[in-house]
């Protein structure tokens, strides 16, 4: 019964007709139109999801806004009484609000018109406030662009005197001409990985970031395909879409920071940096913009923050503290509700939708690239090559969705320049002497080294003494030749010890990596986890390579159709059937929790407001 051993046998060797003419071949213009339509559909869904998120968010924010307004009004009227007309209007507004609240909390029947006004009173300020935050953040970062972090990464202009770099300049010019766009500025970074991306805010100030490794790895027609994808993406207006999407996450962070600002220094620092950045216009420092954007995205994450620290009673316990905690307890509900809400929507609703939206933009850019080069093969091969070893762009995490393929984090993309590679290859070849025949033969080919090295490391971790000896000799010969380069690697003895649980070795490793010069200026932020819109969502921002290649094949690329593994499909189906109900249940529980939190926050904040108002009235009455 060996017949079933190769269920996909017929697919691995496609016949000629399948190879050269897919049955339902599509023209790139049709593909572009289809993906544009898909973008519209998904962005409509995004707006819907944002609106859904907006309702509970508005329910939480609106009372706070009223609270701030009330406190200001009360404070003002302590000194110069406001006209009674103002207070009459205010109580009218609050009456409508109460109608809506009663209807919502106690299912009390209400007059439809009063209810409509009440709902508007409850929701509009919050919605307007959130929209203003989003628009403000969008505007603020459009002014300076997002290029700062990459520019700080020792990005440099390509040298026309070097053949490979000249070729890059030429290819970019050619593609810009083909697209009828102004040629974007090209910047090279000497990052270890092969990748390329775009940054900027509009086609006019777009910049192309290419890693030096990319132009070494790709042939001219592959390079054309890769550059055409990026230039097509610029021409399709993806930069603006990307700005708007990241502004959503940044606005969420800003919201959390604003809400936490009275309770902790961390949020205040973020706010202060942002205000300073947006007010001081003398230099639109793009690097500062990148830092601020990063801080904002981070502040919406579910981390320990000011509020937790504020209520954290460990250590000092005093009566004052517990009274303070009791008074400010409602804000805890508010904060948690907002954070849960933002997290839930960015992870399970708005985030995945944005991911899907971005997929359509990538397919569209692929189709545009085919329009520009009329050669689907170049791009397809480039994507396949890049995906074998996706290059990390150090410090480029915040914009990873603007890169050609998802920046990888593989450990074997280290040696940047040819001399280092050659030296490593020599050391590798020398290290085989103590090894036995069971070791893979050493080769001077760099690609082979980067394949073999992880294997050896695994063997060494597993306790293979010969592998460990080989690693040790490699490390010694590298550090003898170039100590600075060797500092980028962990000492193999430490690594092996750390694997066995040696704490001292672990701390040594932590100090040794990452090497600051390898990270450039981004090394300043190395203690912070990388943040990007990529991290907190169910659906990544990069479309899967398989789908992209399939679409390219429809456009005429000569790639073997990817064999579909039927067994894996069945397993996935069974798993999703089994786990689906639990995931659904968890989501429902989470939604319920959010609803309860929202209600609690609403009730507490309302009580709070009433108390504050009464206090002001008491303070004000003797003078009035």
């Amino acid at each position, binding site marked *: 019964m060996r017949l079933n051993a190769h269920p996909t046998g017929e697919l691995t060797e496609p016949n000629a007709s399948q190879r050269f003419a897919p049955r339902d071949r599509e023209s790139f213009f049709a593909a572009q139109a289809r993906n544009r339509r898909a973008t519209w559909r998904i962005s409509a869904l995004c707006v819907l999801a944002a609106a859904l998120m907006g309702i509970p968010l508005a329910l939480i924010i609106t009372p706070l806004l009223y609270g701030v307004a009330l406190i200001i009004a009360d404070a003002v009227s302590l000194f110069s009484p406001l006209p009674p007309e103002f207070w009459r209007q205010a109580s009218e507004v609050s009456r409508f609000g109460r109608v809506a609240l009663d209807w919502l909390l106690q299912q009390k029947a209400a007059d439809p018109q009063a209810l409509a006004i009440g709902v508007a009173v409850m929701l509009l300020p919050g919605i307007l406030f959130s929209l203003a935050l989003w628009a403000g953040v969008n505007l603020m970062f459009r002014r300076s662009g997002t290029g700062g972090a990459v520019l700080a990464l020792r990005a440099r202009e390509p040298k026309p005197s070097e053949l490979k770099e*000249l070729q890059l300049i*030429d290819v970019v*010019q*050619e*593609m810009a*001409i*083909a697209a*009828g766009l102004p040629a974007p500025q090209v910047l090279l970074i000497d990052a270890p990985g092969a990748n390329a991306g775009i940054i900027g805010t509009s086609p006019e100030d777009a910049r192309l970031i290419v890693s030096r490794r990319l132009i070494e790895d790709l042939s001219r027609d592959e390079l054309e395909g890769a550059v055409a994808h990026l230039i097509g993406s610029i021409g399709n207006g993806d930069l603006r879409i990307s700005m708007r999407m990241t502004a959503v996450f940044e606005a969420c962070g800003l919201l959390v920071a604003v809400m936490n600002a009275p309770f902790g220094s961390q949020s205040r620092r973020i706010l202060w940096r942002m205000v300073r950045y947006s007010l001081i216009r003398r230099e639109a420092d793009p690097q500062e913009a990148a830092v601020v954007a990063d801080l904002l995205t981070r502040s919406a994450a579910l981390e320990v923050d000011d509020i937790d620290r504020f209520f954290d009673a460990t250590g000092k316990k005093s009566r004052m503290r517990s009274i303070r905690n009791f008074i400010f307890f409602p804000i805890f509900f508010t904060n948690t509700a907002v954070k849960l809400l933002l997290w839930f929507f960015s992870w399970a609703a708005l985030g995945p939708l944005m991911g899907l939206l971005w997929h359509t933009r990538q397919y569209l850019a692929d189709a545009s690239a085919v*329009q520009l080069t*009329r050669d689907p093969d170049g791009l397809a091969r480039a994507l396949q090559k890049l995906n074998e070893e996706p290059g990390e762009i150090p410090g480029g995490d915040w914009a990873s969705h603007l890169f050609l393929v998802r920046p990888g984090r593989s450990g074997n993309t280290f040696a940047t320049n040819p001399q280092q590679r050659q030296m490593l290859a020599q050391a590798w070849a020398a290290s085989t002497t103590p090894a036995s025949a069971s070791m893979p033969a050493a080769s001077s080919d760099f690609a082979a080294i980067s394949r073999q090295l992880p294997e050896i490391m695994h063997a060494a971790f597993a306790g293979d003494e010969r592998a460990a000896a080989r690693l040790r000799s490699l490390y010694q010969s590298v550090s003898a030749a170039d100590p600075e380069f060797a500092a980028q690697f962990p000492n193999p003895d430490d690594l092996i010890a750390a694997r066995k649980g040696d704490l001292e070795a672990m701390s040594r490793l932590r100090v040794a990596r990452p090497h600051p010069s390898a990270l450039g200026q981004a090394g300043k932020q190395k203690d912070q986890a990388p943040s990007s819109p990529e991290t907190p969502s169910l659906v990544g921002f990069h479309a899967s390579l398989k789908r992209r290649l399939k679409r390219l094949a429809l456009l005429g690329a000569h790639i073997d159709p990817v064999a579909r593994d039927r067994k894996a499909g069945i397993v996935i189906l069974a798993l999703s059937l089994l786990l689906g109900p639990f995931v659904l249940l968890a989501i429902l529980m989470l939604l319920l929790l959010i609803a309860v939190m929202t209600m609690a926050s609403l009730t507490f904040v309302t009580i709070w407001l009433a108390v504050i108002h009464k206090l002001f009235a008491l303070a004000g009455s003797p003078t009035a």
Partner: protein
Amino acid sequence: MLISPPVIGITVAALVLIWLIAVFNGLVALRNRVQNAWAQMDVQLKRRHDLIPNLVETVRGYMQHERSVFESVTEARAQAIVAGNNIPARTAAESALSGVLGKLFAVAENYPQLRAVENFQILQEELTSTENRIAYARQCYNDEVMKYNTTQSTFPRNLFARLFGFSPASMFAGTDADRAEVYVKL
């Protein structure tokens, strides 16, 4: 109260006017793109002329025996420049230039030392790129013309395009020889 015949009439008229303005502006933008694409081709032809003296200078020392090849390159370039804006003559000269340049690079394959010279490699890359750019500029021109023509000939825009003074542009078909016929009044 609000929805009375005059109000509806004014609203519809305003909407139609806005639509017409959008159509007109869209067509102007497309026409400008077509003209820009056309201009790109000339820019690239000029660029090729500028590169040739350098190439000949580099090659001269290595290819003593192939004097006739690079002399014909120089000559073709001179003719193309002399032709200036005389379209039929210019197109003929440009395609002759493409031909002899191809021959030059084919002959250069026989001179390993020459191919090893970095300056030659760079020049070869520049000229390859220029040929590519000319081809891409043509492709872009044709794409733009297609968009422009489709936009102005589909209903209901076709009712107004002629009225606004837009006429279909012609595609660039095939070889340089056709260029004379399409040197258009857009």
